[in-house]
């Protein structure tokens, strides 16, 4: 079983709609990373969260880490086709080696 659970696995939304992707761990996380991957490309780092309750935003993407540091959400406002791709959460358990979720495949249609 995955140490990091992402949901949903796949998401198809209409352009302009809001959406949320979740990443959940059974253990406390020291750091939570969100990445995006487009077809055939390497991972693109989006955001890093370290403090309980922390929230960061970049353009139309907002990521939050809960107070217990076991769950993070990635929210996209007014989605665009350019947001399409695989969103991956990665977690640091203070071992200097990341573990990753299974990814969420996002498709945005006009």
């Amino acid at each position: 079983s995955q140490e990091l659970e992402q949901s949903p696995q796949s998401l198809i939304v209409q352009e302009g709609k809001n959406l949320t992707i979740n990443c959940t761990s059974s253990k406390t996380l020291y750091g939570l990373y969100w990445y995006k991957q487009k077809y055939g490309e390497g991972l693109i780092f989006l955001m890093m969260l370290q403090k309980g309750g922390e929230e960061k935003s970049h353009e139309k993407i907002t990521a939050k880490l809960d107070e217990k540091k076991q769950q993070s959400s990635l929210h996209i406002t007014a989605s665009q086709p350019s947001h399409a791709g695989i969103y991956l959460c990665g977690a640091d358990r203070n071992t200097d080696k990341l573990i990753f979720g299974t990814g969420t495949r996002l498709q945005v249609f006009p």
Partner: protein
Amino acid sequence: GAGVSQSPSNKVTEKGKDVELRCDPISGHTALYWYRQSLGQGLEFLIYFQGNSAPDKSGLPSDRFSAERTGGSVSTLTIQRTQQEDSAVYLCASSADLYIQYFGAGTRLSVL
């Protein structure tokens, strides 16, 4: 198991020495990626191999870094004349469909 295997898991070296990091991808995966993660930072893409195509080396930080993939399978990342700033966890990933990447456990490199 049948996952991505990296070796060694830890490597300590002296500044100026050369190091080789190895990655055994999942059998049948045509794509192979190298990343590195420095302390407190996100993943940094280094290099990408896809089948027999010329590798995408756009992420290599300097000419001290090179990588090979022999027979479309095993890959070796070589760092020449290591510097302290090279200290990081080096992650390898492989993929069958260019979407989902399966990562190895990483090699932790410490340059003293």
